[in-house]
C-alpha cells in the first residue's frame, strides 16, 4: 500500500479545512494510506514569491525536516507544490533528502493521474461546473497543455473531473486566464487583482457554470470573496471537494 504524507497549505488548514478533509477522503478512497505530519505549518510560498528569500529559507528547511522520509507528499494545491518543486533549490540543493522530496511531492490531481493512474473518478456530481485553471498548477506543474503552447492537448484535472457521472464541464471563453489572486499581488495591486477576478467570474457565468472549481483554494478564495461581495450566485469548490462529494 502506498503511503503519502498529506501536506495541507496553511490557509487551507485554518480557513478551508473541508478541502483537506476532502483530499484525505479522495486519497483513502483510492487505496492510499495517508499520514498527516502534525508539525507542518507553511511552505514559505508567500515569502518566496515576494522575493524575501531570508524569510522563506528557514521555512523551506523546516518543510524538508517535516516531510523527509515519506514516500510521497501530496497537497491539494498547485502553487504550494510548485514552490517545493521549482523554488526550493536555491535554499536546499544538495541537502540529504531534498532530491527525493522534489521528485515525490505532488499536487492531488497530478498524483491521482500520474502516480496512481486514475482515469475514472467513481461517483456522481450532477452539476454545471466551470474549471478554473490555477496558473501555478497549470503552467509550472503542467497539469494541462495550456492555450499558449502548440503541443498535443492534455488536461489532467479535466480528465479526472470529466469522468464523474452526471457532471457538465463548461469552458469559459478564456480557458486559462489568471484570476488575479497572485499572493501579495491581491493586496498590492488591489485594483487590477479585483478586475481580473470579476472578469473570470463573469466569463464562467456566461458559460453557464453554477460552480467554479480549481486546484488552488487561494484562487477560489479570491473569486469567492468577490462573488459574495457583489451578490453573485456562483459557488466555488475545490476539485477535491467535487471528487469527494461525487463519491459520497
Amino acid at each position, binding site marked *: 500500500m502506498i503511503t503519502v504524507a498529506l501536506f495541507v497549505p496553511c490557509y487551507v488548514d485554518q*480557513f478551508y479545512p473541508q478541502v483537506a478533509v476532502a483530499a484525505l477522503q479522495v486519497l483513502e478512497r483510492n487505496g492510499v494510506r495517508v499520514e498527516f505530519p502534525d508539525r507542518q505549518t507553511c511552505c514559505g510560498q508567500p*515569502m518566496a514569491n515576494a522575493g524575501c528569500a531570508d524569510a522563506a529559507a528557514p521555512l523551506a528547511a523546516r518543510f524538508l525536516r517535516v516531510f523527509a522520509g515519506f514516500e510521497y507528499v501530496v497537497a491539494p494545491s498547485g502553487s504550494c507544490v510548485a514552490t517545493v518543486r521549482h523554488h526550493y533549490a536555491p535554499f536546499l540543493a544538495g541537502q540529504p533528502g531534498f532530491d527525493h522530496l522534489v521528485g515525490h511531492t505532488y499536487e492531488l490531481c497530478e498524483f491521482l493521474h500520474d502516480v496512481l493512474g486514475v482515469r475514472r473518478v467513481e461517483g456522481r456530481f450532477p452539476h454545471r461546473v466551470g474549471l478554473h485553471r490555477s496558473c501555478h498548477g497549470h503552467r509550472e506543474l503542467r497539469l494541462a497543455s495550456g492555450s499558449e503552447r502548440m503541443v498535443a492537448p492534455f488536461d489532467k484535472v479535466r480528465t479526472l473531473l470529466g469522468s464523474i457521472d452526471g457532471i457538465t464541464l463548461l469552458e469559459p471563453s478564456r480557458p486559462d486566464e489568471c484570476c488575479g489572486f497572485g499572493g501579495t499581488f491581491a493586496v498590492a495591486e488591489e485594483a487590477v487583482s479585483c478586475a481580473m477576478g470579476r472578469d473570470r467570474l463573469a466569463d464562467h457565468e456566461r458559460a453557464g457554470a453554477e460552480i467554479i472549481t480549481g486546484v488552488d483554494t487561494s484562487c477560489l478564495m479570491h473569486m469567492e470573496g468577490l462573488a459574495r461581495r457583489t451578490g453573485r450566485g456562483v459557488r466555488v469548490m475545490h476539485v477535491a471537494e467535487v471528487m469527494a462529494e461525487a463519491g459520497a
Partner: protein
Amino acid sequence: MGHPQSAAAFLRDEAHARRHDESVWQVRQKRDAAARAVPDWEVLRERAEAIKAHTASRLADYLEEFERHATARGARVHWARDGEEHNRIVHAILAERGVTMLVKSKSMLTEECGLNRHLESHGIEVIDTDLGERIVQLTGRPPSHIVMPAIHMTRAEIGELFHRTLGSEAGLTDPVALTAAARRLLREKFLAAGAGLTGVNFAIAETGGIVVVTNEGNADMGTALPRVHIASMGIEKVIPRAEDLGVFLRLLARSATGQATSTYTSHFHGPRRGGELHIVMVDAGRSVMLGAAGFRRALHCIRCGACLNTCPVYRRSGGHSYAWVVPGPIGSVLAPAVNPLVHAALPFASTLCGSCADVCPVGIDLHHQLLAWRGELAAAGLVPAGKRLALRLAAWVFASPGRYALAGRLARLALRVLPARLSARLSGAWGRQRELPVAPAESFHERWRRTHGGA
C-alpha cells in the same frame, strides 16, 4: 505615481478598460491561430532560443563581424555606450549635413534613448511616420505598446486628435479615412525630410545587412526618399547567419500580430546608390545584463509584444501605467536593470501566472525573471518596509507549530466574532472589494488530532 495607482486610475473608466482588454486579447487570439498553423511551432521557438543563446555567448565577436561586413558594404558603423551617446551621434550626423527634418519609422530604441526630445531641443523637427507612433507623437505621450503604440486610444479619440492637430474634418472614426488623413500629411514630410531613421529588427553578422520589419512601408519611404539613412540598433539585435533570419521572421509577425508575415520586410545591404547608411549600435545597459546570468535571456527579446498581449495585468492597466518605454512583462524585467529605484514596483505588477513565458517566441523565462528581480529588490532594501516586516513576522509565526496554531485560532476567532464589515475593513486592501472567508470552528490540524489522536 506607482504602477498600482496608475493601474487603478486606468481601471476607473470601466468601459475604456474593457475595450483595451478585449482589443489586446484579440491580438493574442490571432497569435494563437497563426502559431497553431505552423507545424512544429515549439521546435521553432526552441531553435530561436538556441540561436539567441549562442549569439549572446559570443556577442562581441558577432558584433565585430557585423561591423566588418557592414563597413565593407559601404555603411558607416558607430558605437554608442548609452542613450546619450547615441543621441549625440545621430545629432552630429544630421547637423554636419545641415538636416533640419528627420522622418522616423518605428524604433523602441530611440524611445528608450529619448532621441526625439534631444533632436527637438537642437531645432531639428522629428516626424514619427508609423501611424500609431504618429498618433502618440501628436498627443505628446509615449507609446503604450511596443507594436501598437496607440492601442490605448479609441478611433473617436484619434479622429478628434487629428481634427485638432492636423485639421482633418471633425468626427472621423473610420480607420481608412483616419489613415488617409495622416498619410496625406506624411507624404509631404517624406518628400521634404533630409534624413530617415529606422530601427533594426535583425542585423546579420555574416552579411553585414540589416532587416527592418514594418506593416506600413514607412521605413521604405523614409529610406528611399532622403539621401541619408540612419539605423539605430541595440547590440542584442545581431544574429549570426542569413539563414537564421528565417527562424525569426516566421516567429516575429505571427507572435506580434498573428500575421503569417509582415507586409514589408526590408533588407538593407549597404547604402543605396549616392546615399549614406549610418548604423548606430547602442549598448545602454545591455552588456551589463549580458553579465547577469539570471537576466541574460531577456536580451533574446525580439520586441514582438506577445507577452504584453497575453498579460492579464497589462491588458487591464494599460501601457502607460508602467512608466517605462517597454511596458508589460518584458518591460518589467528590463526597466529595473536601468534604474532599480525608480522601477522597483514593476516586477510586482504581475501575478507570476507564467503566460508570458509560454507565448514568448524566443523562450524568455519572463515570470521567473520577474521573481528573480523581486529577490534582488528585496535584498537591496527596495521593497516597502511594511511588506517586508509583515512577511518576516509571518515567517516567525510559521517557524513554530505552537505559534502557528495560536495565530490561526486567533484569526479564526476574530473572523467569527467580529461583524463581517469590521473584519473586512481591518483586512485593508483585501476587504475593500472582497469578502473574507467564513472561518470554521476547527482547523484541519485540530480535526486530525481529534480523529487520529496524537500530540
